[in-house]
């Protein structure tokens, strides 16, 4: 156990050091990313004002809060892409990591976790500026803050698992862009990224319960921005934990099969 802790610490330190070399690139990326939620925010605030100040339970201020927190959660959701899996198999990077006495997925989780630390630091001033401009309504309780902190890291793990599963498809075929695009489209709609899920028709909201998407995106935002009851908050954390467990088990099983195939065909 201790050696895993040591490994994570060392890897995270390395990735923090590496990412601190590229503050400008990281910022450009983050700024390009806020265009999306700002547009959503503006549109829905306009709708809300049109309808007398509120729509779907959200005021313009609440929308502002939702979409500003969105930017942090979106960043926490960025993990090794399934396209990256195809790349690293092809370039032989996967072989190199297979030679080490540690499961390559630990490398992914640890490296991106370190990166996230840098991202969070860079995000704070950005969030401050956005708050000045858009005046969000945000009064979280201490419990909400604590739940949020855990929720965003669990969201990160959930998305790591789901995108790893997706990425492992490339062990069998490389003609996968169609699959990936469809996946991302479904995720966009069912996760709470496009709109808060409460604005979706009922049947969509019910559908969203069956997928991990909302637990990696909508739930952390709602935990901080909304007014969920304590039991709802804790149930939410529990659901996240359940999805992580399910993800870890699935990934381990598929990985075994994938590696057997990889070792048969070579890379």
């Amino acid at each position, binding site marked *: 156990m201790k050696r895993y802790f040591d490994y994570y610490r060392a890897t995270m330190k390395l990735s923090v050091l590496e990412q601190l070399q590229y503050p400008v690139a990281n910022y*450009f990326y983050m700024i390009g990313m806020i265009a*999306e939620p*700002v*547009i959503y925010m*503006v549109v829905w605030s306009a709708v809300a004002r049109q*309808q007398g100040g509120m729509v779907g339970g959200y005021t313009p201020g609440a929308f502002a809060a939702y979409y500003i927190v969105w930017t942090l959660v979106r960043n926490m959701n960025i993990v090794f892409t399934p396209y990256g899996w195809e790349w690293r198999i092809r370039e032989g990077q996967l072989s190199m990591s297979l030679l080490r006495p540690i499961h390559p997925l630990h490398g992914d989780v640890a490296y991106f976790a370190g990166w996230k630390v840098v991202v969070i630091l860079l995000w704070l001033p950005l969030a401050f500026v956005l708050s000045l401009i858009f005046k969000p309504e945000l009064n979280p309780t201490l419990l909400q803050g604590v739940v949020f902190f855990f929720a965003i890291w669990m969201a990160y793990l959930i998305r790591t698992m789901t995108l790893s599963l997706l990425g492992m498809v490339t062990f069998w075929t490389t003609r996968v862009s169609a699959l990936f695009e*469809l996946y991302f489209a479904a995720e966009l*709609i069912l996760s709470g990224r496009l*709109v808060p899920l409460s604005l979706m028709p009922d049947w969509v909201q019910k559908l969203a319960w069956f997928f991990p998407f909302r637990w990696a995106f909508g739930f952390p935002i709602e935990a901080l921005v909304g007014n969920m009851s304590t039991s709802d908050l804790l149930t939410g954390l529990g659901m996240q934990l359940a999805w992580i467990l399910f993800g870890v088990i699935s990934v381990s099983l598929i990985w075994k099969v994938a590696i057997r195939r990889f070792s048969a065909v070579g890379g």
Partner: protein
Amino acid sequence: MHGLRLAFNYLRIGVLNEFQYRANFYIQILQTFIALATGLIGLNLVFSQTDQLGGWSKPELLAVMGVFITMGGVIRSAIQPNMERLMEEIREGKLDFALTKPADAQLLVSVREFRFWQLVDVLTGMVVMGVALAQMNWVITAWSVAGFFTAIVMGAVMIYCFWLVITTTAFWFVRVHEIANLFEGLYAAGRWPIDIYPNWLRIGLTFLVPVAFAVTVPAEALTGRLTFQSWLGAFALTIFLFIMARSIWKIGLKSYSGASA
């Protein structure tokens, strides 16, 4: 007109090249389909809560989306590929051909690449526009048709100039290719007419990034909102941007070849 003929030849080769990759056609269809579906879902969500937005009705916003998709197709088929290739060549110092061919360098670098399959978007956008116009009980007037086509051309030229200016700064700043990400995000703002954006954002969008001009003005033409003033304003801006872009390009090219400014 030797330069034009040369440019046309580049174009022809580019298109023939694209035909080799038929798989790209299917991928493009899928991407267009997904983008359209997502857009329609977004539009319907908004209109499940209200019946007009910023003075625009649902079919009118559908027309905006059609223009958005079409313009996006034009950008991704003709403008962006050339600019991205130019960025790479500036970064790697491979622009010598531009200085040695007997044709205008700006023309050459602007037409070499053409992603044929992105035209699917242009087509899809026009279909969406058609559906929207039918729902609006559209009345054909010469002004709206002429206004629309000229606005589209002006919009494309404006976006081209914007891209060219950004790309030309690659002569001085190295990490310009992240701009491509930025543009994608900013262009998405064109999905909605600029009327719904707060004033300060509107100014940023129209003058800093002529996105709104490229999408809103043609849409205004289609929906009968286009005033002569707006059209004139767009025209003036187009001319201004074109001159500015060409000047900056010339300066950049000079600095690349080591000549004094």
